[in-house]
């Protein structure tokens, strides 16, 4: 369906994104403070959305794009909720 060049390029992009997830995971495990970990989780969510977008190009299937939209919308909500929780904890 998609040409060989596009398939190879999307595979390379998936590899780079996977590497980025790994680096974010290092920050998630090491992160000295809670906000560092929260930002790392947010980054992993956004990278997952990006990976699914690239996957939809690789598979030539537009259905995956909606999954990416849902992840992008919902992971933002999780970050807001955790930020609120942290803010509340510091007040006490």
């Amino acid at each position, binding site marked *: 369906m998609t040409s060989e060049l596009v398939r190879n390029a999307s595979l390379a992009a998936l590899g780079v994104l996977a590497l980025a997830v790994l680096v974010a995971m290092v920050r998630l495990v090491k992160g000295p403070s809670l906000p560092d970990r929260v930002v790392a989780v947010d980054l992993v969510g956004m990278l997952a959305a990006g990976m699914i977008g690239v996957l939809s190009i690789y598979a030539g299937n537009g*259905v995956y794009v*909606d*999954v990416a*939209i*849902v992840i992008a*919308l*919902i992971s933002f*909500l999780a970050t*807001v*909720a955790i930020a*609120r929780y942290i*803010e*509340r904890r510091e007040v006490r």
Partner: protein
Amino acid sequence: MRSIILSTVARAMLPILIMFSLFLLWRGHNEPGGGFTGGLVAAAGVILFSLAYSPRAARRVVRVDLKTLTGFGLLMAAGSGTVAVFAGKPFLTGVWWKLAGPQGSTIELGTPFFFDLGVYLVVIGVTLSILFSKAEEEERP
């Protein structure tokens, strides 16, 4: 505590999320999506509103009492199953009607859609009542 950026974004995002959830509900017929995911996305929009303003303001946005919403959804899902019983088929079998659409086309409307709509309402009602009760418990000192 109250962030003006968050409250502005929440106000703009709520209609977008609800529109997207209706899109998911509609498309769940033949492609990925459906009542459950659609309901979760709609509930996420209202929860964002409740985080930005307050759970009380978010309850006002929903307008309907959550128990009524859940009960109505459950009734709708169960009712769509019993239609097949009256048609002489096993419970929850899909029954389809063909309606005349514009320009001589036909719209196929079936009980599976009403089942999905019922699931959509139940998911919104249950998710919001769980999260609102947590948020209101948190507000009380």
